[in-house]
């Protein structure tokens, strides 16, 4: 049995925040919630307060200078977490503006301590502490701020209160402001503008006794309050071992795509846990192939999730090939259409993960990467490759088989698999192209790679019918199909492996 003191961690009631903090707020800790005006500080602490407060764990919310309490109460009660029944029961609001105005920092802190010692609240919030400090600094013979803050921290912790001081601090303040030295926890809220998009981010700069997730985490404020999307930290994906690997190693099962002929081209389907890129020009059938993949999964008892970034889910289900709308209504398939244009990768992953757990998905489709990139806030588009890398790693790390579509310009001068340079992230690539044959525009498909597995190298014709994709035969007797100017060769004169007149592949 350990003699070390156990530190209880209080759940904040803010979705995603406990994970970022490293397990919740340490009981009896002295914390600072900092950020610019409008960044969500008051909403955050009130959400925590209403989640934690109960009859045997009361809370006091001290309002000082700053947002007038009349307005604060008016606006905050619009949030779902604001429980009127708790006000003056387990939650008390006390205004200290008069003390701050007339008697300064010392009087404010003294009154806080008096109230705390009189009523023994478990949760104490002071909003805004910055205004208290400023009032103190305006005094001619300014008090020893560090001493007063240290004493406050000691008295509140000694009285078994978990404290949150709210303030409109600037990042530069962290270097020399005594409050940051004294605080056990420091949570910073940011809101950044990039073009017309505003993104909220949260950073736990310190949290004594535990390890928060480092970095900036996006959050959203809705009628329900804050929701934090913990920044995903994933190592490089470990692709499962496919057929052809060492005999002693396990082989993942294959996921049928549901298109006769394509499974064969892939060497027996897509290895489970792989990520697959389906690349092709507009209208080539990428979404239909992705839908077939999900539909086949539903048929085989392998539920799926489709993240649609272009069409709306209802349109997607209706226009897709048969059965998807029914599979969706049966709970075999979830179609999500996330809020466009200001997403973060972590919010997308959160929505995907919720849907994945809801339907116990084995398959995921992202349709398309171009739409996904557009749906992200501009600030996240800049590092789209890194974001996508983390997303794919997280999904495949969960054992899901992921299919992503990417639209390509139908260029005949070079051969790219993704406009994002993301092809290297994926374990398999299926390429779709248009070719002109016998005076007709035909669709062809090829499997470019399946990591660690044998696959066919054929270029095969395919058609999109009312029943879905039908893969035809390998195109023989032609060379230079991908150059846009194929020419017929006789079987006798054709080179065994065809001297490649195709452009050099680029990923």
């Amino acid at each position, binding site marked *: 049995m350990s003699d070390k003191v156990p530190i209880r961690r209080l759940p904040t009631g803010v979705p995603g925040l406990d994970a970022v903090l490293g397990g919740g707020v340490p009981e009896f800790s002295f914390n600072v919630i900092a950020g610019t005006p409008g960044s969500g500080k008051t909403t955050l602490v009130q959400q925590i307060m209403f989640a934690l407060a109960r009859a045997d764990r009361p809370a006091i919310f001290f*309002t000082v200078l700053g947002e007038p309490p*009349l307005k604060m109460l008016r606006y905050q*009660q619009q949030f779902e977490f604001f429980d*009127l029944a708790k006000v003056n029961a387990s939650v*008390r609001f006390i205004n200290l*503006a008069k003390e701050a105005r007339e008697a300064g920092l010392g009087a404010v802190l003294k009154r806080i301590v008096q109230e705390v010692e009189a009523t023994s609240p478990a949760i104490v919030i002071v909003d805004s502490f910055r205004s208290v400090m400023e009032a103190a600094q305006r005094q001619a013979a300014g008090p020893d701020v560090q001493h007063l803050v240290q004493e406050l921290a000691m008295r509140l912790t000694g009285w078994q209160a978990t404290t949150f001081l709210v303030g409109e601090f600037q990042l530069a303040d962290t270097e020399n402001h005594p409050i940051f030295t004294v605080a056990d926890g420091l949570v910073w809220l940011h809101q950044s503008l990039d073009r017309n998009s505003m993104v909220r981010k949260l950073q736990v700069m310190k949290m004594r006794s535990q390890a928060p997730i480092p970095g900036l985490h996006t959050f959203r404020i809705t009628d329900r309050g804050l929701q934090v999307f913990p920044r995903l930290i994933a190592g490089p994906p470990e692709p499962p071992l496919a057929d052809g690997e060492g005999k002693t190693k396990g082989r993942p099962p294959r996921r049928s795509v549901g298109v006769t002929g394509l499974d064969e081209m892939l060497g027996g389907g897509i290895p489970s846990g792989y990520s697959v890129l389906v690349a092709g020009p507009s209208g080539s059938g990428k979404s239909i192939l992705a839908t077939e993949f999900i539909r086949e999964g539903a048929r085989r008892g392998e539920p799926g999730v489709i993240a649609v970034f272009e069409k709306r889910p209802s349109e997607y289900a209706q226009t897709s090939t048969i059965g998807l709308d029914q599979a969706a209504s049966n709970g075999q398939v979830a179609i999500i259409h996330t809020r466009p244009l200001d997403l973060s990768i972590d919010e997308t992953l959160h929505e995907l993960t919720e849907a994945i757990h809801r339907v116990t998905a084995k398959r995921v489709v992202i349709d398309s990467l171009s739409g996904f990139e557009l749906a992200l806030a501009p600030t996240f588009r800049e590092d789209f490759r890194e974001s996508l890398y983390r997303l794919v790693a997280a999904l495949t790390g969960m054992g899901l088989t992921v299919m992503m579509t990417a639209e390509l310009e139908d260029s005949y001068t070079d051969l790219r698999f993704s406009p994002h340079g993301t092809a290297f992230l994926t374990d398999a690539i299926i390429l779709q192209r248009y070719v002109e044959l016998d005076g007709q525009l035909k669709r062809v498909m090829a499997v470019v790679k399946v990591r660690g597995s044998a696959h066919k190298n054929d270029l095969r014709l395919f058609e999109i019918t009312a029943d879905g994709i039908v893969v035809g035969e390998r195109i023989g007797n032609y060379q230079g199909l991908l150059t846009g100017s194929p020419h017929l060769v006789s079987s006798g004169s054709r080179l065994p492996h065809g001297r490649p007149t195709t452009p050099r592949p680029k990923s």
Partner: protein
Amino acid sequence: MTSDNIRQRVFRRMLAREAGTGANARAIAGAARGLCERFAEQLTPLIGDAGVAAIWARSLHLTERNVRGLASVRAAAQGDAPFAHLQLSLEQQEPAAATEAAVAVLATANELLASFIGEGLTTSLLREAWPEDFAGDTTEETIT
């Protein structure tokens, strides 16, 4: 019955109880001041003295249109002891008029506060000071 009428009924009953049966204007004025001060005491911890002063000034402004003698109160009530001026004004009126003026101011302040922070929170606050008069839930039917 509207919630305004209910508010007036509640404050009229409270005033009669505090002033006593058949009270003269002086007793009514004293009781009205007591109720106002209790009202303010209840609110000050929550919305601060500045918040109370704002509610009080607006309530007087809204009430003085219909109630004689209150205009001078608002002008004089900006400093310390704001309710003393109301008391003085009411003392100079007939008992019935003093009652109506006091009830109107209190009911207006109550309504104004409810318009800012909601009926639920307002009733919950007043219930702490006057549990019997603001018993029950926050809807108008349950204000007794």
